[in-house]
């Protein structure tokens, strides 16, 4: 019984420590919406899963500082948790538009300086970001 108590405490503390750096409470800015035309764009690399590796490299270079290496977001930076359904349910076009335009008044810079296909590679990689319990799906 005592051993179980220590185990439970360890799990709770581990979860607390893990959640401290993440941002599971992230809520999307309701005013940060793309026009319909942009939201309906499809990813031209959707049939090129080999482009994901490049997307991961770009993610680590450009995004991980604020969104964590696993995309779970950082609470103190109020950055999006890409593993959340609220993010994953957004269309490819929406994610592309958000990367391109940023949300400067909420700290997210525009990344339009990254070439267009590289931004689509980022979208491709974002689709791979799921909570550790879920298996990754094909893009």
């Amino acid at each position, binding site marked *: 019984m005592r051993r179980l108590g220590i185990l439970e405490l360890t799990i709770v503390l581990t979860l607390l420590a893990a959640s401290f750096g993440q941002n599971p409470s992230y809520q999307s800015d309701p005013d940060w919406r793309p026009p319909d035309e942009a939201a309906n764009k499809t990813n031209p690399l959707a049939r090129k899963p080999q482009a994901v590796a*490049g997307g991961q490299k770009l993610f680590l270079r450009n995004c991980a*500082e604020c969104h964590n290496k696993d995309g779970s977001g950082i609470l103190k930076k109020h950055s999006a948790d890409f593993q959340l359904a609220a993010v994953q349910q957004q269309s490819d076009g929406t994610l592309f538009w958000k990367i391109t335009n940023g949300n400067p008044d909420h700290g997210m810079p525009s990344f339009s300086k990254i*070439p267009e296909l590289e931004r689509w590679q980022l979208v491709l990689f974002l689709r791979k970001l799921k909570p550790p319990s879920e298996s990754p799906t094909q893009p």
Partner: protein
Amino acid sequence: MRWIVLLFLFALSGVACLAQESPYFVTYNHHMEEPGNLEIEVSSTTDVPRSGQRFYFAPWTELEYGITARWTAELYLEGQSTWNDSTIFTGWRLENRFRPLKREHRVNPVLYLEYESINEADRIQKELEGGAPDVSSPNSLLRRIKDHELETKMILSSDIHDWNLAGNFIVAKNLSRSEGFEFGYSLGFSRALATMASGSNCRFCRENFSAGMEIYGGLGSTLGFGVKDTAQYAAPVFAWMISDNSTVRFSPGIGLTHDSSPALFRFGYSYEIQGFGSKLSHLFGGKP
């Protein structure tokens, strides 16, 4: 002193950093420094002198910080060394760039305001306005002439199919002397050599290179507008991202008028520290 060393070492410990730098030396586009990032750049301008002029080397250090996603500030420290003359500190400048529009548009404006405290020996030629700079007089004479200038720029920039097109119009006012308002311009275009990232961490992949062209020069002043007696240059520009956080840039410029140097060579190395602001805040026990 201990704090400064510690701070510097701590700042350099940031590894995963961003440096997708524009290859331009003179032209500004609408891409701002990411908020909280600090970019340290060491650059230089050298020329091929005309007969009767002396070769010079003008280095400068640039500290660029993203205050917000729409506001970037930069501090420049400048010097100059002339062959068979002397090596001197020529001054400093503080600039601010502000993006008035939240979203990306076909043409993106940026407002620019700069204060310069330099002397006439300054030769970095980061921008050209008014007439051609004096590259013939000795440093001992030029360094005594102080300039306090206010400068504004209207920056217009577009990203079209992975090409960046940018134009700057400069208005400068020397507060130390009545020279009227001086004008200048710069135009540039550039593009990354590859538009998709490979999965490997390669240094020599095309995706790490970008190239383009700049044209810049003075446009006289309210006392005499035009390109007469001004320096004008056309300069190819190249950038190589040698790692995730550092970039090397090079630009060989060709003088287009008699008042220009026959050639200007610019070389720059930049190192970006991501999350510098929060690291600094954390170091002093503040809330990031």
